[in-house]
């Protein structure tokens, strides 16, 4: 990693939100929200600056304390990290705006859940830290920061349902973290290093490595709610406050996916086989079908959206089997690799935006009608034009219909599937899309249906509606920079040591 330009930005990306989080503690609730919001917007700004920096200068690094790995920790901001950070900033920025107005409206007595702001800023810092980190243990710390923030945010409403869901979430998260950390311990024991690049070079196959790989993977799968470990997600996401649900679904679960992607692509070359990839893909496929079906069967709005997240995360898992070459295939002839992984990343972004918008809209609806039964959507179109548009657009993006971002993501995924010859995933994508269409249009159908009994829609702050709509529109607008983003990812030196080594097929002899 030497030779790459250093930049203070990675450090700032983590430090700055935390500084702001600390600052907010000093203010009265009302002011706290303002300071928090300002902080969020500044953080987003910082993230964009950093993103631009990477587009200009390529990968930049930062070594806190000035110590090089393996003893020190390396923060590396490459294209992948930059994209994730940018995504967090975009979605997070919108959600912050929304939250500012929403929380005040929900809880005017105490100035709108003042703890939201420090927690959210901490969460943001944690996410940035995670995306930047190049160190196994540091990753653990960041995911713990994220987990605690996420759960704390999830229980912010203080309702019993939220608390129970939160505890379930927290225990699952801790279990996942501990499994991950056990794997890290074994890896450290085997190699004496925690640095990802270094580890990828020195890791040797063997039971220990395999076992470590497995517990790390499974731990992360628990944290990203991959099937069959999605048990915590629907209750937690559906019981949280609307902006929190959006944050959790859009950003938090992506953290674990990010690590998984990095580890599998950069580090675990020696351990994984084609069949293992297939298994992960299978889990993803089941998640797609199961989650979509469950979403389709829900009668409560937020549970529906939450189950939809389970399914959408399944899509992300489905890129793993494609990224692992079957025996006898060399990376040179595998033309689907870059389309698959960039497509997966793109899918992450589009899902984040669409799902955030979806949750925010759901929050608006619930605020307006006072409950979250799906029936409440009746005649939504007549009463809340903007929100129904937001739901419609976000839903369309989730289904993956053109010209949404979800479409580009799904397009690339499907193309990867077909190019790689692993056609058996294609029906899953199709069925998933159909079921997604099923639940999205179930909502829209109700939105167009006439109201049964006259349940008045309470007025809702316009800001909320506009933010949700803006996000929904963004899920379409991201189609425009898609080409740029994908090129940016493809041309960068991501997975520098890892994917090259992995993809050259060198480590695939054992299957």
């Amino acid at each position, binding site marked *: 990693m030497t030779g790459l330009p250093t930049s203070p930005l990675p450090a700032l990306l983590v430090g700055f939100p935390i500084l702001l989080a600390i600052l907010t503690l000093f203010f009265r609730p009302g002011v706290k929200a303002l300071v928090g919001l300002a902080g969020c917007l500044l953080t987003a700004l910082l993230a964009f600056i950093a993103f631009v920096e990477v587009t200009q200068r390529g990968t930049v690094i930062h070594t806190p304390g000035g110590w090089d790995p393996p003893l020190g920790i390396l923060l590396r901001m490459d294209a992948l990290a930059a994209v994730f950070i940018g995504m967090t900033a975009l979605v997070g920025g919108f959600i912050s705006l929304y939250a500012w107005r929403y929380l005040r409206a929900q809880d005017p007595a105490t100035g709108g859940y003042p703890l939201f702001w420090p927690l959210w800023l901490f969460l943001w810092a944690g996410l940035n830290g995670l995306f930047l980190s190049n160190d196994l243990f540091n990753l653990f710390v960041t995911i713990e920061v994220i987990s605690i923030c996420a759960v704390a945010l999830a229980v912010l409403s203080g309702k019993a349902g939220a608390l129970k869901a939160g505890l379930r979430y927290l225990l699952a998260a801790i279990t996942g973290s501990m499994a991950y950390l056990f794997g890290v311990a074994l890896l450290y024991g085997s190699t004496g290093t925690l640095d990802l690049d270094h580890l990828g070079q020195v890791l040797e196959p063997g039971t220990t490595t395999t*076992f470590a790989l497995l517990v790390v993977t499974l731990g992360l799968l628990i944290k990203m709610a991959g099937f069959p470990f999605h048990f915590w997600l629907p209750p937690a996401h559906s019981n949280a406050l609307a902006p929190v649900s959006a944050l959790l679904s859009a950003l938090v679960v992506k953290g674990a996916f990010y690590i998984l992607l990095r580890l599998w692509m950069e580090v675990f070359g020696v351990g994984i086989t084609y069949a*293992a990839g297939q298994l992960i893909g299978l889990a993803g496929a089941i998640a797609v079908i199961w989650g979509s079906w*469950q979403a389709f069967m829900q009668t409560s709005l937020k549970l529906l959206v939450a189950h939809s997240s389970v399914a959408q995360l399944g899509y992300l898992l489905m890129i793993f089997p494609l990224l692992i070459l079957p025996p006898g295939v060399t990376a040179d002839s595998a033309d689907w690799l870059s389309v698959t992984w960039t497509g997966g990343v793109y899918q992450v972004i589009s899902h984040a935006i669409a799902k955030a918008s979806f949750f925010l809209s759901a929050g608006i609806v619930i605020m307006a009608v006072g409950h979250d039964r799906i029936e409440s959507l009746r005649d939504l179109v007549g009463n809340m034009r903007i929100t129904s548009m937001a739901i419609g657009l976000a839903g369309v993006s989730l289904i993956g219909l053109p010209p949404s971002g979800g479409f580009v993501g799904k397009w690339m995924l499907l193309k990867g599937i077909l190019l790689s010859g692993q056609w058996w995933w294609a029906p899953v994508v199709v069925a998933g899309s159909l079921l997604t269409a099923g639940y999205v249009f179930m909502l829209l159908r109700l939105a167009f249906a006439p109201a049964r009994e006259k349940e008045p829609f309470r007025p809702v702050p316009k800001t909320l509606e506009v933010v949700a709509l803006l996000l929904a529109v963004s899920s379409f607008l991201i189609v425009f920079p898609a080409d740029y983003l994908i090129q940016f990812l493809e041309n960068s030196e991501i997975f520098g040591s890892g994917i090259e080594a992995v993809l050259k097929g060198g480590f695939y002899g054992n299957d």
Partner: protein
Amino acid sequence: MIWFLTIVLPLLAAFFAVFLPAGRRGSGFILAGAALPALWLGLVEVSGVTAPWFLMESHFSLDTPRRIILLLTAILWATAGLFSGSYLKDDARRGEFSFYFGLTMAGNFGLLISADVASFYTFFALMTFASYGLVIHSRTPSARRAANIYLVMAIIGELFLITALYLAVESAGSMLLADIPPALAESPDGPFIFLLGLIGFGVKVGAIPLYFWLPLAHPAAPAPASAVLSGAMIKAGLVGWMHLAPVGLVEWTFLSLLMVSLGFTAVFGAAIYGLTQVDPKANLAYSSISQMGVMTVLLGIGLYGDIPPELLLPAIALYAFNHGTAKALLFMGTALPAKVGGAWRILMWVGLGLGVLSIAGGPLTGGLWTKSLVKTFLGETSLPGAQTFMLLLKLSAVTTALLLSRFLHLLYRIKAPSGNVAPAFFLPWVLLLLAGGWWTMSPGLLPGELLSHISGAKGIMDFFMNLQKNWTAFWTISIGVIIMAFTLKFTHLNVWPTKKPSLPPGDFIHLILFAGAAVAKPLRKGISLLESGIQSIPGPEKIFYIISDSKRTSRISSAAEALLRRWEFVGIGFFIFFLILFLVLR
């Protein structure tokens, strides 16, 4: 220009007549005036035109036989138009009548002057469908029934026709009608294609066995409409046949014999069945079928190959001309006896008598001349059984005379008005009388070759004045008339029904309808059962709805999800996942 006027004027007349206020005269003049360009085209030879902008590039031109028929048609439409003007003066639906009348006229003219398939078919269809409005005009149940049967038959005919045209055009490689007969002669599928056309146009011609609609539809229409239906439109089918038939180019024994024998079947069958009718118009309709049989025979001869088309086709046209004018005269004449009184009745009866004679081929009429054309060609053909056919032809004069004298008898029974009255529509009738079948002998109509072929150097008048011929014609007709008179005179021999036809008009159609009703009822029931069956078969989406909307499904899936949420099962999932992955990676 004149070509387009021929079509456009009737169309304009049709639309204009609709808006003419009720009770006003003048629609007759408008309709008659609209036929003038056609009349002009029939009389004066005008070179053809091409209209590249019309349909799929249209050609309009006339050859001799079609010009003869156009003339006939124009005369009939003009007189019928005039006739209708006063005949239907007080009819509530006069406007509608004029509308359909005009449209039909346009179609009829158009199909005659068309020289390409597309425009021919277009006008043919226009005529077919527009005449539906004429048939149904009275809106009585019987008219409705007749009209609907007509429509069904017409559509069946159209289907055969379009098939024939597809095949013909394909084998000819050209849309020009003139190219079709040679192509059919060449093509191995020629006979088949012609057979399709035979059926398709046969409906209009009223050929056996497709004539059922005719005795129902022609009488149902008002008199002027019946006149054009039976006099002019029926000839459209004949023209169609003539367009397809490769006369003189082929020797299709089977088709030739088929046409000749079907023709004679019509000649006798229709004549005899017609005797049982009490409605003079039905009687006439059967006569039309019978007469069209003669023309079928003529064309059938042509398919045997030894008669050149330049001779045969004009001959057919001439026969058609004679029959057309006379038949129209008689049809319109059916409206007269109830309205014409006093001295005018003499004129009426003379006219009617002339018409009857002309159709039967009586002495000194155009019918004598045209029938001898048939005889000539029957004599010349080498078709097997020609001699028998000749005999039959002679015999047909008897049956025709019998049938038409029955017609006169039926008219005679109509009570005459008192006083010396004649309705306004008597005048056009007289005009038509004047424009009768004699014209068939005018040099203006007769192609030179045909004339010289038949009458040699002696000329037409000599032929026409030939005593022996006239005598033969006379006595054969007399036999028929005498039989009629004899049976009428002697009460105990008089079997002629007067109130109710002993057999219904439309003959076999009733059997068909009866059989059809017997079959249709269960069939319809079966189909509607099938339909309801189809309707009750859930589409794929319905099946999905049933599954997804059922309570049970949601119970099962929420139970399954609840199970997956239990920590034990998460643990089991963890270990299963772990173990499989571990085994895979080992």
